[in-house]
């Protein structure tokens, strides 16, 4: 495929089935260093299964997965991969912890048992909070923040251990429409300014098409995997087939809150 840059993630001929049903069939995917890949697909398209495979939460049945050039079964460097789930609407919002404390908890594994936060770790935590634009809130209880801000806290928690790759699963669920824009802008700067490779999974094609560098469309099979510009050309006609009905692809000056098909 693309040999010029090192792929950080590579999936070769990956299939996966639960009981008798195929969830993923013959997936080939590679993500280069520095890319911002958006994976789109309707609900039930196998997006979360694919993430679980990449994160090593479930074992591969067929095919190969390489992370940072290493076979996933031998891969140990999990600190290089940060993961942010659809947390903002599911965690205990009454939890009495400050933004700082939550972000610092991202260092737990890296520090190891019986080690305490030192000055340089404090700086790291502050840096991570700054990079998601939450500096003024660092000493607030996390429950006082809005859904979008809470999601940023979780991104900061993932950033604090210096991941090379950040995987985000539907990060804008629970973020109100007017804040989605600035949320993507923040992701953009993580990608461009800090050089973090991003993998974003969403059902919301319109929202990401002008931010990501690469797009992959998943629905059991991978239908398209390439540069965003190429995707733009084919999206209207092909996408309707792909989603099974007409969809509206909106550009960013529109409210893109309710579209994208089969969700909820």
């Amino acid at each position, binding site marked *: 495929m693309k040999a010029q840059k090192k792929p950080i993630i590579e999936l070769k001929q990956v299939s996966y089935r639960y009981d008798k049903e195929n969830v993923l069939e013959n997936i080939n995917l590679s993500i280069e260093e520095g890319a911002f890949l958006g994976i789109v697909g309707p609900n039930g398209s196998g997006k979360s299964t694919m993430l679980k495979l990449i994160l090593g939460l479930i074992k591969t049945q067929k095919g190969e997965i390489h992370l940072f050039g290493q076979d996933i079964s031998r891969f140990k460097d999990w600190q290089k991969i940060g993961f942010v789930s659809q947390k903002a609407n599911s965690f205990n919002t009454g939890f009495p912890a400050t933004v700082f*404390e939550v972000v610092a*908890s991202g260092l737990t594994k890296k520090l190891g048992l019986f080690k305490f936060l030192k000055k340089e770790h404090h700086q790291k935590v502050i840096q991570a909070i700054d990079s998601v634009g939450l500096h003024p809130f660092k000493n*607030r*209880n996390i429950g006082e923040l809005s859904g979008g801000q809470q999601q940023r806290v979780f991104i900061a928690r993932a950033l604090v251990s210096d991941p090379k790759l950040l995987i985000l699963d539907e990060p804008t669920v629970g973020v109100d429409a007017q804040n989605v824009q600035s949320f993507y802008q923040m992701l953009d700067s993580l990608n461009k300014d800090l050089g973090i490779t991003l993998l974003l999974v969403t059902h919301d094609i319109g929202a990401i098409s002008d931010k990501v560098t690469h797009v992959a469309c998943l629905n059991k099979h991978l239908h398209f995997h390439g540069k965003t510009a190429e995707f733009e050309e084919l999206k209207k006609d092909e996408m309707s087939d792909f989603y099974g009905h007409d969809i509206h692809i909106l550009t960013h000056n529109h409210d893109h809150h309710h579209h994208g098909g089969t969700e909820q």
Partner: protein
Amino acid sequence: MIAGILQYEFLQNAFLTGIIIGIIAPLLGVFIVVRRLSLIADALSHVTLAGIAASLYLEKNFMTFSGLNPMYMGMAFSVTGALFIEKLRAVYKHYQELAIPIILSGGIGLGAIFISLTDGLNTDIMGYLFGSVSAVSRIDLWTILIISILVITLVILLYKELFLLSFDEEHAKASGIAAKSVHFIFIIMVALVIAASMRIVGILLVSSLMTLPVAASIRIATGFKQTILFSILFGEISVLSGLSLSYYLDIAPGGTIVMIAVLILIITILMKKLTIKLK
């Protein structure tokens, strides 16, 4: 009363023990409350009761057990109960809360049998149920001191892991920390602290010393460390003033301690309401 404390060993024992459990009960209580495990404390305290009743029964009926400190068997039962709860939670994956009523009723049932077989509800048992100012011996005090040093050291050493486990159990497991072992150590600590605290507050009220100060603290604290700090502060106020009242009014300390904790909780709720209105 200061004179009394200087003069009587039993008062020294009671107050020193009170100061210690005023720290460790709310300290573990913070983690219990935020992890929504409050009822586990209740279940374990009832299992502790079964252990104490069993010990009293053995002491009365078998010479070999005479002079056995009931606290030890209480602790053994409490720790065993904690292990059973963990086992049951794994068995009933989809009904994890079932483990608590099973262990709780099992504990009371066993306790009732041993109490009936011994003497019925005598003053000794009443002391264990509602706490006592006069029942704490020097040996009890030393045992409780050792437990508290162990608990405080472990909480400091495992603070990061305990925090992550409490805030986000899924993430804790996924991130590869030894979540299972940390949880196991935590549950054992809870079992020990419950058995250690029952001399002063009594079996029936132990769990309230772990939860009420935390409930008050959560209302007003910012951040997790402050929540712990305020919880311990409220715990200390409750225990010390509760013990004093108990001594002067000749009321079981469990009652006075818990009612003061309730009072503190009400005050914090009202204070919070007031500050919101004033804003």
